[in-house]
């Protein structure tokens, strides 16, 4: 089962490598990973998506908690949550394709953020499956390049992950 694990991490050199190393060392899988500092400059917020049954996810969260630089670990998928992923796609856009891509981007509430005579770059934000659907909709032939941010998420409601 796909899980979104959210981690508050000391914003220190080497901390990220411990998290990534743990996943490699214990043969856990990372589907996506995103990390950046938070409003508190001493902390980074890391969000990763992984696959595993309950037993595996329990071990992952426990092992993450054991890392000295990990301040907090939350499995967002345990409760209601909001998740988003950002994608930039560069698409071949010539002739009739230009209008078609524009229409498809509108349907998916994407924006064209860069354009040349032969290419569009579309920005899309949403849950990962929506981004997948967009890629299917525009078709493989027109895709030149894709970059995705990996999933970020927050719990719904008042609940917060803090120190």
């Amino acid at each position, binding site marked *: 089962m796909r899980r979104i694990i959210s981690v508050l991490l000391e914003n220190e050199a*080497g901390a990220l*490598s*411990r998290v990534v*190393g743990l996943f490699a060392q214990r043969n856990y899988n990372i589907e996506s990973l995103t990390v950046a500092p938070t409003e508190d400059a001493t902390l980074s917020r890391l969000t990763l998506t992984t696959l595993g049954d309950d037993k595996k996810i329990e*071990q992952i969260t426990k092992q993450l*908690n054991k890392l*000295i630089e990990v301040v907090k670990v939350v499995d967002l998928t345990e409760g209601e949550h909001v998740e988003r992923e950002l994608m930039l796609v560069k698409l071949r856009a010539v002739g009739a394709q230009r209008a078609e891509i524009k229409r498809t981007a509108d349907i998916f509430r994407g924006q064209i953020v860069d354009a040349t005579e032969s290419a569009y770059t579309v920005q899309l934000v949403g849950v990962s499956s929506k981004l997948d659907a967009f890629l299917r909709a525009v078709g493989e032939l027109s895709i030149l390049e894709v970059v995705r941010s990996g999933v970020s998420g927050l719990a719904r409601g008042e609940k917060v992950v803090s*120190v």
Partner: protein
Amino acid sequence: MELLSGGEALIRALQDEGVEYIFGYPGGAALHIYDAIFQQQAVEHVLVRHEQAATHMADAYARVTGKPGVALVTSGPGATNAVTGLATAFMDSIPMVVISGQVQSDLIGTDSFQETDMVGISRPVVKHSFMVKSAEEMAEVVKKAFYIASSGRPGPVVIDVPKDTTDPSYRVPYAYPESVSLRSYNPATRGHPRQIRKAVDLLLAAKRPIIYSGGGVIQGNASEPLIALAKRLHLPVTHTLMGLGAYPSTDPQFLGMLGMHGGYPANMAMHHSDLILAVGARFDDRVTNDPSKFCPDAKVIHIDVDPASISKIIPAEVPIVGPALPVLTELLATLEERLKEAPELVDEAARSAWWSQIEGWRSHHDFDHDQRHRNEAEAIIKPQTVVQALYRATGGEAYITSDVGQHQMFAAQYYRFDAPRRWVNSGGLGTMGYGLPAAMGVKLAFPDAVVACVTGEGSIQMNIQELSTCRQYGLPVKIINLNNQALGMVRQWQDMQYAGRHSGSVYQDSLPDFVALAESYGHVGMRVTDPAKLDEAMEEVFSPALKDRLVFLDVAVDQNEHVYPMWVRGGGLRDMMLSKTERS
């Protein structure tokens, strides 16, 4: 405030931490630190012959004293040679601080001479690691390292020290922090009272309970409440390889070690139990055999300071996160309260039926604690009898270290440990070459104690260069070499699983003359081949005349002997080979 260089601050911090010994080996990146060591007396440096040995000495020092051991190595190869020792300590949760020299900060990342990414290379086998950024933070880093190494589930910590942070010409104010707090690290200090009450209820309701304890009871100094609990409820006790000595081995309630080479009564009692009280043990694969067939009727109460150990392999009915000592103490108090109100809660009838079942297993098959008859029958020394002779000669009072292989299992099975911290071996990682340096670390910790290393001709050669260190520092440890002229445990598996094809497990007459070898280092070498002379030789090794000498006793033992019991792979704990032909 006093001004010290980073190198001096490092050594002063070790003094302030109460460190007695640094086990180490110098090199370019560590020379400022070595100069700081030279200019003080409080911390003694022990020069090893190989960095791996330094880490094992520090590790064994920690195992017997409970205080973190300290090793110091230089950058590059010095650091990489320390990795095996770090992994050994990590697997057995041993508090240790390894200080590694590093090339100066502005050379890091340039592939400079003797540069290696020590923080990176050691990451999977340390509890935590630091790279010192400046002389100013030296004292605080040392304080944090010792705190992390010795609290919670203990483990090794690396401090990587770039040479420029120890520069003698740059001095900074020194103050050793009184305490340290880390917002992200708060190990449990006691168990949850509600969980403890649940555990007491289960213990009182159980018909066939058993205590299964491991290294956590030794490291957690929880032997006393463990014994009291076992006595109070008349519980059978078994230990893991790491747990030996927590409960007195000569006490009738002790069933012996469990697991792959555990005793028949211990494995049978575990398999048939209805409640396992697991304390400071982690259901390691050498204990459980096939987890799906493990103790089918047993509920589990699992006490461990590391929450990640609980329900990792075997699900726990009652998980209790906390150190063994406070948890067991509170569990005992809760139990006493319950029994004061209702003494009838102890089901005497069930307990006596359980014990008669256990006695049945015991009389069917148990360790034979005097196998001299086997020597006589075959006119060859059986390795088990060497451990038994050692036990007799030392009155069961010695500190025993071991290497890895058949001799390690024989030592665990036949030396009967009646006190904690007397049995020192690499259980988790299984590091050959551990035994001799470990014995040296123990001897330095307790100079008046009798310390023997039970080893084999394979393992001893992995760190035999330390005979020179023993000479330099006058360390009269006793080496009992079970010499079967083969890598015995490998050979045993090849006998059992590979139709006797001894691939890579024999030396083809290349072994050294161990007596002459020991003598060349200025030690005493002895050899015994005749079973009739074994006891006499062993007495001599431990005689007052040789009290201050390192004695290397090379014992020619039966090459064909296997370690039994040995479980049948893929089975439950009850599935064992009891001899080459007999199955449980």
